[in-house]
């Protein structure tokens, strides 16, 4: 329990991306004492990721648009009294107490009156044959390399993905000098009806649509072939990516036989959208819903971004992936709600301040509805793995190892116990969805009905040197309260030790 700064903030905001920054700004503007933490060395989250330590931007005009937008958002926190802690992860939450671990320091506990979770999202893992080969990288990973380190991992890049990302990423990467051999979009090409629907939803969304047009122009300028209705089915190579095999898919993203094509490449970038990072929201017990198009399990919340847990708010892609524009406005609502519930602003004031954000959110969601046919995630994405495919990368558990366990139970906790799938350092972030999909298929149930494994802290690995607290005395267990019991029988076998 060391370190300076705010120990008892009115609001602890976890995550310094668009949602978290916007929430912190709204809450601080309304008069709350806000502590904002992010595990990265810079604010901005994934979308507004800034160049890493050691890099200096000498000419902001030469950077991409997201960099400039991000810098403006980050600078909006200046001078409004928000305390920012970077390289700091919230690893556990118990009631109003959050445990913070800052790189290189002992863990410390912060007691916050309210908690606002804006943890963002991570790449939707897609288990397919060869996905563990060096050279296969997620869109988020590749973007991080380009944005923070200015490096690209190979010479010939195949991009395979879906949704807005499938347009934006290859365009951005081309801007950074990457050679994109081909870009594969699993969804259908936009038809006339789609264009009409999108045009109707255009009011208020011109910036987004202008971005889309700009990405399209970038792809054309860099001569990146964009192919619709195709999915990557496997990756081949001896110890590294050498060939990428792709095929045409139907509306459910199921492979159409006889349509396979092979392309030589040394990098496969997978960008099948994002899934909310639910570690903390699940740990504190927030109720979830299911919407595959928003990333699968999504956080239930009211019109003020209140979760089902009293005093806990959530905003941004960590609640359901809708992008940075929605995240900023959800963050604003959540920050206002915290101030409203703390009694520092009136409902009238909160409503007035929230009105523009609500209007923008309605428009964004109208556009999402218009693009839904194009960006819907098909169940075929979870049917690419074969018996030999490694599903759990940490513990090297293959699909064939999982099947006998799945034959015996529909409970992912039991499958985990039998096979060790999900027990490694990533704690199931990469395999859990695929295991749920395999369970759902075998037991004839929708994947939405398969509960995730029991959430447990720490939600990030914590070195024992940072975790250990030498001031805590050992408990005396097994003895009656007054500790006056006589000798006890039987050598002990710890039942949970």
């Amino acid at each position, binding site marked *: 329990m060391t370190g300076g700064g705010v120990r008892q903030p009115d609001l602890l905001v976890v995550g310094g991306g668009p949602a978290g920054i916007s929430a912190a700004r709204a809450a601080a503007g309304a008069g709350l004492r806000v502590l904002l933490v992010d595990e990265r060395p810079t604010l901005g989250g994934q979308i507004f990721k800034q160049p890493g330590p050691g890099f200096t931007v000498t000419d902001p005009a030469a950077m991409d648009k997201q960099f400039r937008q991000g810098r403006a958002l980050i600078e909006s926190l200046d001078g409004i009294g928000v305390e920012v802690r970077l390289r700091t992860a919230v690893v556990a939450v118990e009631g109003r107490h959050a445990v913070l671990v800052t790189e290189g320091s002992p863990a410390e506990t912060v007691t916050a009156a309210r908690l606002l979770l804006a943890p963002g999202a991570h790449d939707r893992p897609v288990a397919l044959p060869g996905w563990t080969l060096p050279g296969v990288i997620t869109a988020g990973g590749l973007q991080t390399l380009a944005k923070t380190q200015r490096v690209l991992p190979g010479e010939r890049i195949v991009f395979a993905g879906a949704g807005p990302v499938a347009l934006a990423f290859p365009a951005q990467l081309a801007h950074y000098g990457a050679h994109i051999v081909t870009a594969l979009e699993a969804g259908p090409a936009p038809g006339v009806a789609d264009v009409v629907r999108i045009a109707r939803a255009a009011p208020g969304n011109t910036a987004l649509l202008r971005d889309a047009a700009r990405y399209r122009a970038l792809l054309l300028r860099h001569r990146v072939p964009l192919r619709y209705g195709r999915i990557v089915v496997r990756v081949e190579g001896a110890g590294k990516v050498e060939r990428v095999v792709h095929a045409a898919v139907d509306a459910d993203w199921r492979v159409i036989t006889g349509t396979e094509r092979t392309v030589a490449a040394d990098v496969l970038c997978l960008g099948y959208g994002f899934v909310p990072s639910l570690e903390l929201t699940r740990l504190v017990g927030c109720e979830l819903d299911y919407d595959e198009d928003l990333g699968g399990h999504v956080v239930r919340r009211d019109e003020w971004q209140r979760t089902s847990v009293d005093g806990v708010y959530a905003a941004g892609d960590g609640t359901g992936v809708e992008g940075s524009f929605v995240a900023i406005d959800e963050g604003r609502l959540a920050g206002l709600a915290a101030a409203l519930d703390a009694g520092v602003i009136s409902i009238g004031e909160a409503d007035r301040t929230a009105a523009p954000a609500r209007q923008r959110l309605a428009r964004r969601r109208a556009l999402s509805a218009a693009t839904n046919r194009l960006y819907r995630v098909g169940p075929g994405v979870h049917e690419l793995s074969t018996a030999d495919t490694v599903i759990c990368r940490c513990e090297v558990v293959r699909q064939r190892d999982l099947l006998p366990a799945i034959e015996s139970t529909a*409970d992912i906790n039991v499958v985990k*116990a039998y*096979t060790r799938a999900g027990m*490694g350092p990533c704690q199931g972030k990469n395999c859990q969805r695929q295991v749920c999909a395999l369970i759902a298929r075998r037991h004839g149930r929708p994947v939405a009905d398969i509960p995730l494994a029991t959430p447990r802290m720490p939600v990030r690995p914590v*070195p*024992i040197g940072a975790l250990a607290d030498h001031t805590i005395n050992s408990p005396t267990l097994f003895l009656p309260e007054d500790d006056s019991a006589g*000798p006890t029988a039987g*050598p002990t*076998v710890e039942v949970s030790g």
Partner: protein
Amino acid sequence: MTGQQWVSAADSSAALPASTDVLVVGGGIAGTAMAYYLAREGVEVTLVDRGELNREASGTNAGSFHLQLAIHQLSGQGSGADRERLLAEARLSLAAFSVWQGLDAELDGSLDVHLTGGWMVAETPQQVRTLWDKHELEQLAGIETEVVTGAELRRRAPYLAENITAATYCPVEGHANPLIVAPLYALRAAQHGAVIRTHAAVLGIDLHGDSGAKRFTVHTDAGSIDAHRVVDCAGAWSGELAAMVGIRLPVRSEGLHVNVTEPRPHLLTPMLQHIGRRLTLKQTEQHTFLIGGGWPTPAAPAPHRYPTSWHSAAGNTAVAVSVLPALADVRVVRTWSGVIVFTDDFSPVVGESRLVPGFHACVSSTGFTFSPIFARQLAEQMLAPRAASPFPDRYSLDRASVATTK
């Protein structure tokens, strides 16, 4: 386990039979072992669990066999009778472990039973004295231990911290994989004809007197079943089950906290315990470190899992790193909790009730070690009842009921 088969979901979710000779309640190690030892001899047996198999204490413990006496067994040794009892339990634990060592062959599987040896370490002069007392008792009980100090300790256990001044080493301690033992018992029981039914929670029990084939009707949320005999293997919830037939078991339960780290290169073969602080520690087959030893968790009503506790994680790992300094930069990746059942008098509850004939129990707080031997002994007694129970009176199901009715 690659290729290992388990009781299929199709079987475990089928309808309950209308009647059975023996109904076992609880799908942990005690219940599945009971089902196996009875079914193996041709007894008609049905096992029900309210959830999945092996999800509570049996599957959430660390799978260790600690034969060395623990601090709470040594503090205030009391009377000679207490001492006799301590020695009897110690000898029983040796017998229990020998059953374990034959289980791979018995169940035709790989339970990862390993004899690793174990250290119990001491820091303060008082702890070192306790260590010597413990060693003396262990010699009496026939548990092989030696006290190691100074340069010899540094040579044999170079990984221990400088402040560890002495330790006892017991070569016959070890561990097994708690995640697969009960499920394998269940599979073998099913192959011998036992009916295994999961997601069948017992709601109530009707008694029909002590004669005839049907002495009990057990109502579950998956249907009702008539039984001639019932075996309570419900662990932490055994008291609730026994209460349905009017028996008060002297059992309580607590949640315990465990930490597991990322894998690291092999450092440690023996298990570690502390004579004066709460610690059990071992490096697993997967090279992760399991750190536990009796740190509490808050309680939570079923079906919720007990939450884990940062306070316990911080205190538990502090003891661990003060014994094994190499842990300082090893990362904890997860915590989990398990429930432990224990009795106020620290004796297990094993045998048949005299108050409610036909109602049996197999419950012990050190259940991972003792369930195979207790289940085998109880099954033998149920197969060929002898006038004299093989279990001491202090194991009686009726001891708390009798005490309260006096």
